[in-house]
Structure formats: structure tokens, C-alpha cells
């Protein structure tokens, strides 16, 4: 069995989760606390991938960033980066597609912080950055774990979007696509090996997620 698809899958899941975590914390903070009008539209756009078919997202992605588009050609010619049929391409697609799974638990976490706690940090003359770092983030630790695990698990299971954006290249051949290819080639044993590994990993991730949700010791003291 070729283990490259697993390496690609976990590299994709790890980088997607890491990059999204860094981006999502300030975005979720803004969406949770900002009083800006029209915030609901921003939130709705970010949450769209939950219900949007991956093929729709893949289609528009290729229409904006594909090799035939002006943006795609500009990046290809200037920086030598291709946003389609490359690992960078499936990474960007994956980040867009997984945004709601990272942002939503974080927004809920920030919104669950009691108003008195937030005002206490103001009364103690703490800057917003200091309050986020020292008080808010430790308080929403469980929401952060939820967001990280959901995003990681969801990236592992991606299929349609990766197939559309990544095509059939070695660097974009994730495990879920490899199962599909092996099935088409009638290599059922190999497909089964890939599938059982993904099944076990998915179960362990969901088990851990449920453990975090149910175990009182993981809640904030």
C-alpha cells in the first residue's frame, strides 16, 4: 500500500487547521463582539460552505483562480504559484471550505463569556489584546478544541472539492480521492486498506471530541 495519500491528507489537514486557527480567532472575536451593521452578511458568507455543495465552491474557485483566469495567470507568471492542480490550491480551497467549522465554535465560545468578565478586564485597565490572550482564550479552551478537531476531521474527509481543484496529481492525491481511484481500478483490497484507516482515524477524532464535550474536568474551572 502506498502511504503517500495519508501523508498528503494529514499535511493538508494540519496546515488547514493551523492557518485557519490563526485567521479565525480575530475574525470570530470581531463577529462575536462587533456592533457593526451588516455583520450578519459577513457571518452568513463565512458559514455558506456548511450547506454549499463542494462542487459549487470548486467550480467558482476555478473560475476565479484557475490557470486560465487573469488572477491565476498573474500569480503563475509573477510568483510561480499555481492555485489549481497543486497542493497550494487544495490548501486554499480547504481553508475556504472549512472556515465555518473553525469560526462557528469560536464565535459561540466568545459569546458565552459573561458580560461582567469582559467589563472586569476593562475596569482593570487591560488592553483588548491582553484580555483576549490572558482571559478570553483560556476561558474558551473547550471551544478552541472543538473548532480544531472539527476542522481537522472535516479536512480529512474532503473529497469533491479536492478532486475538482487538485485534479489527479501526486501532490494532491489525498486518501479519500485515492479510495475512489482504487475502486475505479477495481483494487478493492487497497481501497479497503485506505478506507479502514480513515474510518478508525475519524472515529478516534469524534470520540475525542465527545470526550471533551462531556468530561467536566476539561471545562473551565
Amino acid at each position, binding site marked *: 500500500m502506498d502511504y503517500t495519500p495519508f501523508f498528503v491528507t494529514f499535511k493538508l489537514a494540519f496546515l488547514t487547521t493551523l492557518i485557519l486557527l490563526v485567521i479565525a480567532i480575530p475574525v470570530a472575536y470581531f463577529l462575536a463582539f462587533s456592533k457593526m451593521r451588516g455583520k450578519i452578511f459577513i457571518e452568513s458568507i463565512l458559514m455558506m460552505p456548511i450547506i454549499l455543495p463542494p462542487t459549487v465552491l470548486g467550480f467558482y474557485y476555478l473560475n476565479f483562480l484557475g490557470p486560465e483566469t487573469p488572477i491565476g495567470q498573474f500569480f503563475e507568471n509573477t510568483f510561480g504559484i499555481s492555485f489549481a492542480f497543486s497542493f497550494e490550491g487544495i490548501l486554499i480551497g480547504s481553508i475556504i471550505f472549512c472556515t465555518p467549522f473553525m469560526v462557528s465554535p469560536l464565535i459561540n465560545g466568545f459569546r458565552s463569556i459573561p458580560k461582567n468578565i469582559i467589563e472586569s478586564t476593562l475596569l482593570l*485597565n487591560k488592553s483588548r489584546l491582553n484580555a483576549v490572550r490572558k482571559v478570553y482564550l483560556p476561558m474558551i479552551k473547550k471551544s478552541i478544541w472543538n473548532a480544531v478537531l472539527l476542522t481537522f476531521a472535516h479536512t480529512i474527509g474532503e473529497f469533491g472539492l479536492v478532486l475538482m481543484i487538485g485534479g489527479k496529481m501526486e501532490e494532491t492525491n489525498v486518501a479519500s480521492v485515492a479510495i475512489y481511484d482504487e475502486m475505479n481500478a477495481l483494487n478493492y483490497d487497497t481501497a479497503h486498506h485506505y478506507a479502514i484507516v480513515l474510518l478508525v482515524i475519524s472515529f478516534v477524532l469524534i470520540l475525542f471530541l465527545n470526550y471533551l464535550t462531556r468530561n467536566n474536568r476539561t471545562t*473551565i*474551572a
Partner: protein
Amino acid sequence: MLEFNVHKSYSTKNRTVNINCSAKIEGSFTTALYGKSGIGKSTVLRMIAGLETPNEGEISFNGIKWFSKKEKVNFSIAKRKVAFVFQDFNLFPNMTVEENLRYASKDGVISPLISSLLESVNLSDLLLNFPNQLSGGQQQRIAIIRALCQEPDLLLLDEPFSALDDESISELIHEIELIQKQIDIQVLVVTHRKDVVLKMADLVICMDENGNTTQGKPKDLLTRSF
């Protein structure tokens, strides 16, 4: 001396609330802001702290204007140097008592004064506990001491006794008096309980539904009905 004359109105789903309150507190150690629930006592306290902005009026402390609508003055919370204790959720649940106090202290160092306050109210042994390991009364006492870490000029208490039983209330009042004796700080406490006013305040500001405020000695005023 704390002097204020503030007005604020806002609408909720069910009603429009009009808050008017004026008072001049001079030479008082502990002042109670008293009135029925929902009359706007806490909002007045929040306006003094800078957590909310009045629609009209002025607030000044020791001759310095903190807020004036006319003169377009509005000091930030930091500049007002007030300590504020809410009725609940004061302490940061992710930190121990010691960490809460260090976080509130300048340069992260608990001052000798705060240490002696902890000792005088018998809380020194609880430094390593998390807030959820403390009783309601202990949490409020720690919250008051934490609020004093910033060396404030004025201590504002917003219904600090609402979640406590009668015994804990008496203890907390006694300990607030102990703290006051050590650091000589003016206290303004919001409460809807007559017994609390009579026990701890030497001046009371009574707010009524018509937007009138009356100021006087608790024993003189609280025999009337509000």
C-alpha cells in the same frame, strides 16, 4: 466628594426606562444607592464607572469632571480610577485566586497592602483555589480585594449581596468595614435591601419611579415608603 446629576433613557422590548439621579456625596464613608429593582440604580453606578454614557448630565469626583455632556468631557474608565464589583461573575474562572490578584495588580506583583487585606479577612489560605472552589461570599470578598489592586479612589459595589444568605451578608459587610478602615476608601453600594442600607451605609440616596432622588441619613429616610 462625588457629585453627579445624570439622565439616561433606553427602550427594552417591554418598556421605556427613564433614569434620573442626582446626588452630592461629601464626607460620607459608605453611601447606598437604594430603590426598587429595575429602577436604574445599577445603570447609575455603571455611568459613574464609565461603563455606560449618560444622555445628559455631569459627573465629578474631588472637583475633577469625569463627564459633562455640555463641555464634551468623558473620561475613560482607566482615568476615573474606580473599582467596580458586580453581583456575580467577577473573578476570571481560568485563574486561581492568586493569579486573579496578580493579573489585577500593577506589574503583576501583589502589594503588601493587598496581602494584609487578605489576611484580615482570613482569605490567605485560598490563594491556590479556583473561583469555583470558593463559596459565594468568598468569591465576592476576593472580587472586592482584586478590585482594590489598582489602587482606586472610589469603590463601587453593584448588588454585591444578591446571591448571598443573611449570614454571609453580615460577614461581608463586616469585612468591607475592615477593608475601609485599612485603606480609607469611599464606597458607593447599590442595593434594594433596606436591612443592608441600615447596616452599612451612613448616607442613602433613594431613587423612586418618578425619577426623583432623595438623599439623607438611612434611619431618617427608610422609615418612609419608596
